[in-house]
């Protein structure tokens, strides 16, 4: 499967790209992580040359040339093993450029049906020759619905992960964050806490507390403590109320190894969660987070650009029928995505790629204080994502995560996006909001949501 090489002339200069991964990397719109990895195009002209060469490449070529050798990488083997030739048939004879045109013209049902026939590399390639508007429009056609205790991803809905983190996992501090989010309509995707420590007893205390809150208020949603998968497995063994199993994943075997996971470990964790039978409407029991740059950070990128590796992480995710998947797009730092412009495009690429591959794709619209970005950039990305039909975004009190020390979207931002785009919460959750008397302005907490019920006396 060695590369044959690709060439393209622009303005009298002939550019040569040794293999598929080089072609993909040079064709990628500029971002700091690809420059850091030494795989970015050397000039704007070289980038366009690569994009032209990529546009002429038959999609079927992606089934013959792997960007990471299959003998070295279980993610590559998974991608090839799971490829569905029948689903691929409608676009089998197209080039990447014609595939872009096909996606822009096709009906939503046709785009959605394609998912099992696409590989991450095909999707990444199409994204590289798309503008922001294309990424939005095509993603908006994809229909992905998942269920656990409610229904996520129905057309016209926008769900919110309620993220009530606390620097010391103080149960009352977390509970106050949960109640604040519920009062602002958040929590239909999941009530999910990033624990400050991965200690199993501490994780179990948080799991019990979240389950108690859900039970006391009878909320049709699911909870999750985002500890390492092995910690969650131990908690399940000890009888903790685990709804969703969380794990950070990446697009190569090496980056997953750096996260302490493998496909077989994830398979085992999923089986364990399914056996608990806690879902009432469905059995999507996994929750994954990803993000461009993690493979370079783990020195496991094999010379592949960060957007392509990120799309490969979605092949890992879809193997396990997750309830939720989100890219944490701006968290990794400016050496991978330098500013608001790079974060905006990456967030839309990730959402597009995940949706096209059939995932319930959300985005943590976020940045750190050493990135050239601010809340205006997040507003722009959130607005574009809402237009693209993003499945869910984060809800953090006041957009300020006091545990992870980064900024994301607030509960208010979620309400604003719903209001501006006429979006609603998941139907079961929306009915609950109405039942509880949530939504009216006012300084008082509705009696049915009394803080005393969840230990906030």
């Amino acid at each position, binding site marked *: 499967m060695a590369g044959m090489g690709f060439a393209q002339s622009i303005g009298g200069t002939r550019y040569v790209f040794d293999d598929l991964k080089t072609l993909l990397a040079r064709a990628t719109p500029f971002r700091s992580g690809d420059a850091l990895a030494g795989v970015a195009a050397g000039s704007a002209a070289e980038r366009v040359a690569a994009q032209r060469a990529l546009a002429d490449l038959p999609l079927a070529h992606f089934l013959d040339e792997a960007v990471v050798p299959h003998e070295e990488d279980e993610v590559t083997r998974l991608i090839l093993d799971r490829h569905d030739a029948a689903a691929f048939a409608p676009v089998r004879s197209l080039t990447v450029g014609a595939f872009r045109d096909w996606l822009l013209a096709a009906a939503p049902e046709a785009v959605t049906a394609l998912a099992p026939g696409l590989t991450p590399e095909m999707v990444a390639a199409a994204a590289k020759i798309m503008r922001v508007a294309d990424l939005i429009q095509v993603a908006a056609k994809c229909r992905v619905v998942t269920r656990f205790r409610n229904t996520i991803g129905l057309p016209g809905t926008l769900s919110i992960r309620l993220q009530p983190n606390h620097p010391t996992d103080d149960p009352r501090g977390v509970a*106050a964050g949960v109640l604040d989010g519920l009062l602002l309509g958040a929590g239909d995707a999941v009530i999910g806490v990033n624990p400050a420590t991965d200690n199993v007893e501490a994780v179990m205390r948080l799991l019990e507390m979240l389950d108690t809150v859900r039970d006391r208020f009878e909320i049709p949603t699911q909870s999750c403590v985002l500890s390492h998968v092995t910690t969650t497995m131990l908690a399940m063994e000890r009888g903790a109320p685990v709804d969703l199993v969380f794990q950070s994943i990446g697009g190569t075997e090496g980056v997953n190894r750096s996260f302490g996971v493998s496909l077989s470990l994830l398979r085992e964790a999923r089986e364990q969660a399914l056996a608990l039978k806690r879902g009432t409407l469905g059995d999507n029991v996994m929750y994954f987070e990803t993000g461009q740059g993690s493979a370079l950070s783990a020195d496991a990128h094999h010379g592949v650009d960060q957007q392509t590796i990120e799309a490969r992480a979605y092949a890992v995710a879809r193997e396990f029928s997750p309830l939720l998947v989100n890219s944490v797009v701006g968290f990794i730092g400016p050496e991978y995505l330098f500013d608001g412009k790079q974060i905006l495009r990456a967030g839309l690429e990730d959402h597009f790629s995940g949706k096209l591959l059939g995932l319930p794709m959300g985005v943590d619209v976020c940045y750190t204080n050493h990135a050239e970005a601010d809340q205006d950039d997040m507003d722009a990305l959130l607005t574009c994502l809402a237009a693209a039909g993003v499945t869910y975004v984060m809800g953090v009190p*006041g957009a300020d995560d*006091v545990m992870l020390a980064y900024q994301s979207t607030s509960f*208010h931002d979620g309400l*604003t996006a719903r209001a501006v785009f006429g979006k609603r919460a998941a139907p079961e959750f929306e009915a609950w909001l109405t039942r509880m008397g949530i939504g009216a302005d006012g300084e008082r907490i509705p009696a049915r949501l009394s803080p005393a019920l969840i230990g906030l006396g």
Partner: protein
Amino acid sequence: MRQASAPTLWRDLRRFTDARVGLGRAGTAVPTAAHLDFQEAHGRARDAVWSALDMPALDAALAPLGAPVVHARSAAPDRRTYLLRPDLGRRLAGHVVLPAAPGSVAFLVADGLCATGVQRHAPAVLERLVPALPLPAGPIVVADQARVALGDEVGERIGAAAVVVLIGERPGLSATDSMGLYITWAPRLGRTDAERNCISNVRPGGLSYAEAAAKAAWLLRAAAGLGATGVALKDEMPAASLPAP
């Protein structure tokens, strides 16, 4: 049967957490005052990222320790390059001459992602740590545009037994002056983060100067016994040996 207590005001939730809860609403958005509170915190954090070490002031603050103080800089020529190229922040620029001090504990005072905290906290921690060292104190290198791993090259050139890097942590909205301490036994180019021990969140309102210095001295003694730092060296310092803050 559950008995709900009387309704409580939303803003009462603030007493349970420092998170921005109970902000109220202006339509679907946050009210003006809460919006500007956030902008102020972010503005302070942004300024902290772009802050620089005041070398003369630092020299004056470090002079009473009696150790030689040497200025250096990383291979990252400016802040923007520093942010984009972590690899350059891990290597020394040019031909700075570092004094040899074999077998010593060398120090690197580094701006990291925020110079303001280090400027204030590093001299105060060193003043408490230097007298408590299990080995002779080596030189204090002060470096601009520096990452943690710059300590590996600094320590190797000095011939130090260990290097302690005092470095500015990434500013958050609630703390913009945190300092971290990274301790590496037998420093040399190519050491990984798994081979270091870290003490973080040193600042007023976080870990005190005395606690940070005591923990660093304990880790250095344990490292000298073990001949290693990092995952092999667990922080098992008894709580009772911590000085009162």
